[in-house]
């Protein structure tokens, strides 16, 4: 495992078919860096949920991942509409996703709860009309 490795991805919000591609890349890189499978799984699921959210709700954004021998930090930043009520958004089953997103297999309102479940630390900084930054950490 390296001292510290950083990855940066631009997430295209205009094309749903590419949603999740950055998470696939991160998973592959963490495997190459020989992180434990259970850590990789947690990071993958949390980042993937965040990446999908970003495409569904915020027209894309950027993802930065920093992996060290102590923790893996994932920061997802967008300039989307922001979240008016974070407590409500954290509730399992609450979703503002439209039917077209449900038809694609997402929008069950489990994204944020799942991101919290699979990480050791999660913080949401959001401002309506400006955007949202989600920071997550998975400890080794």
């Amino acid at each position: 495992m390296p001292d510290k490795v950083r990855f940066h991805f631009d997430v295209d919000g205009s094309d749903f078919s590419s949603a999740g591609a950055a998470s696939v890349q991160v998973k592959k890189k963490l495997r190459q860096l020989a992180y434990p499978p259970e850590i990789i799984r947690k990071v993958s699921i949390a980042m993937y949920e965040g990446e999908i959210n970003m495409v569904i709700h915020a027209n894309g954004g950027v993802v930065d991942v920093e992996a060290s021998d102590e923790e893996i930090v994932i920061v997802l930043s967008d300039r989307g509409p922001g979240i008016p009520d974070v407590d409500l958004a954290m509730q399992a089953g609450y979703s503002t996703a439209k039917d077209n997103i449900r038809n694609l297999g997402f929008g069950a309102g489990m994204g944020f709860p799942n991101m919290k479940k699979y990480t050791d630390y999660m913080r949401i900084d959001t401002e309506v009309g400006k955007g949202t930054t989600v920071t997550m950490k998975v400890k080794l």
Partner: protein
Amino acid sequence: MKIREIGELLDAKLLTGEDGLDNEVSSACCSDMMSDVLAYVKDQGVLITGLINPQVIRTANMMDMVCIVFARGKAPTEEMIDLAAECGITVMCTKKRAFEASGILYCAGLSRKSEAKDA
């Protein structure tokens, strides 16, 4: 159960991942809702679905699933098959409906042990 047996039981056509046919799996999940797969699936090796989009492959990859069965004769796109190959996931399609495919695999022993505690 070997992935090869799943293919035989469902009379399924293999689309990619021949190398994985001898891998053993013990449980499966049937869903068109990838959100639910991400939220509720644990240690399940096989995904049975009727949903066609690249996120099916990516979701299976995130969950460390090793085999996807597309039901109701749904055919994944070339892009999806290539992505699955890249992720090392065996992909097959069956004409059987998802409920029937799940029932056949369950009766053959898949998921019998793990279902109760996941419910």
